[in-house]
């Protein structure tokens, strides 16, 4: 396993409902990032289809593996880069049950996927109408270290990233489609999740306007001490890189020992209270 990796944050805008064009953009971006020696290239939430596709989601969703993941696997194989992207995933067992999923592939093929657990359904968001929530936190042991995946609104719930950390994640990846009015939340929460878990956090947000909804970008990598190591532009497409050295976790974890000081007995009480809210 590599201790030091180079991560590329591919902050793109998507052409809504046009998977072919988005796959082409993903391929071009991965090639560009690879030329700058990126080991891992991360794309936003639902970057295969765009975010505001509403009922069209039923026509766009695909199984995993499926035609689009196959294309991404080919790109990964060809470029030798790992890729994380988002797509609507059609359940293999049903005909119209869809998940909002993050997919991780590497040069050897498909590595794993994470189904978004917290689906915002308020204000401009209508995810519960379309998606079934996932039920499991996801961490994958890769040559690029232990990578945990979360998606957008999951970051508001510390237990999701905490779970990935407890399962060993060194790098927590949050892919996102966050509109401009939510910027302050994400700028705070990305730092908080990295600090409280003493792990790296890579946040990749969408840009562009979909059905009047403006996505703000601002993708970033936060170190285990909460320091923002790199940040992409607001509102425009961007590709930024950052070297991450997992050895940096140790010194932070030693003197900010949030994992050592965890109190599991509180979780029972937390569960009880949450059930009676």
């Amino acid at each position: 396993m590599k201790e030091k990796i180079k991560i590329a944050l591919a902050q793109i805008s998507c052409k809504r409902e046009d998977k072919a064009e988005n796959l082409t953009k993903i391929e071009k971006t991965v090639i560009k990032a690879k030329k700058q020696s990126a080991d891992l290239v991360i794309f936003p939430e639902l970057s295969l289809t765009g975010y505001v596709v509403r009922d069209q989601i039923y026509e766009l969703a695909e199984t995993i593996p499926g035609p689009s993941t196959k294309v991404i696997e080919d790109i990964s194989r060809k470029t030798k880069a790992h890729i994380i992207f988002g797509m609507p995933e059609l359940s293999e067992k049903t005909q119209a049950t869809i998940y909002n999923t993050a997919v991780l592939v590497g040069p050897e093929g498909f590595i794993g996927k994470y189904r978004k657990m917290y689906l915002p359904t308020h204000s401009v968001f209508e995810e519960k109408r379309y998606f079934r929530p996932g039920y499991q936190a996801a961490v994958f042991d890769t040559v690029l270290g232990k990578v945990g995946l979360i998606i957008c609104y999951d970051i508001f719930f510390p237990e999701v990233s905490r779970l990935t950390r407890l399962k060993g994640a060194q790098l927590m990846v949050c892919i996102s489609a966050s509109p401009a009015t939510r910027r302050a939340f994400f700028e705070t929460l990305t730092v908080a999740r990295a600090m409280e878990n003493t792990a790296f956090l890579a946040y990749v947000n969408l840009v562009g306007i979909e059905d009047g909804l403006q996505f703000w970008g601002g993708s970033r990598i936060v170190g285990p001490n909460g320091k923002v190591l790199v940040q992409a532009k607001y509102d425009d497409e961007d590709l930024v890189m950052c070297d991450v050295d997992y050895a940096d976790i140790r010194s932070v974890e030693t003197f900010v020992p949030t994992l050592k000081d965890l109190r599991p007995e509180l979780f029972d009480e937390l569960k009880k209270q949450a059930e009676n809210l």
Partner: protein
Amino acid sequence: MELAPSVLNLDWQEVETKIKRFIKDYVEKSGAKGIVVSLSGGLDSSTVAALSALAIGGDKVLGLILPEKETRNEKDIEHAKLVAEKFGLKSQVCDITPTLEAFYKTIPIFDPAEKVCKGNAKARTRIVYVYYYANKLNLIVCGSSDKSETMIGYFTKWGDVAADIYPIMDLYKTQVRKLAQHIGIPKEIETKPSTPALWPGQLAEKELGIKYEQLDLILYGLEHFMKPKEIAEQLGIEKELVDKIKHRWLSAEHKRRIFLTPKLEYRTIGADFRLPRSYY
């Protein structure tokens, strides 16, 4: 929540940037050649015309000045031209009086004293002109409705509100004034009393019986789920006034949501077809 005027403060530079990006993105994706705005010389339409010009260039924006005999106001026409000149947009004047007069003549039940029906006909006639230009020149129609008037239904259904996009519909009137100030709309336009110009002497605040400064705070409170009693107490006004505004807001939803049909089939227009607004 404290209902002080400061709750309506926004970062006006950020608002300007967001609106310009919204306009530019929509025009580009639609493949249209530009924008047409019905330019009355009032605050809202001047602001929208100026923002359009700032977003895509004045040479791609057409301000249509559409006066008619009964409400014609040379000052408004002068203001409309002033905005066009300052922001470098094209303008054209079409006097809609002959159209209206011909229209009135063909209606057996026409009643010249019925000012609301006549006023709404004027607003709808203006939009016929605007869409003629839009079709002929491949332009997007930019609406000038603001949040205050749209919330309380102070507009003509299928009339002045008809447009393809609404750049300032999420801003209350007093916020539009601040934005206008920020982007350099001439002071005399920014501060003049608002009028829908449906009949002579019509002034919005007089007709509504409330100043926009107060109306906007009431609407802001309602938007944030505050109870009328709480709003009234904070603003030091009668609860009945807040109730009246709330009633206007809720009873005008039929003007904001179009296409109501009984549900008969699998997917119904207006009820459960949920599609992105545009397909490209």
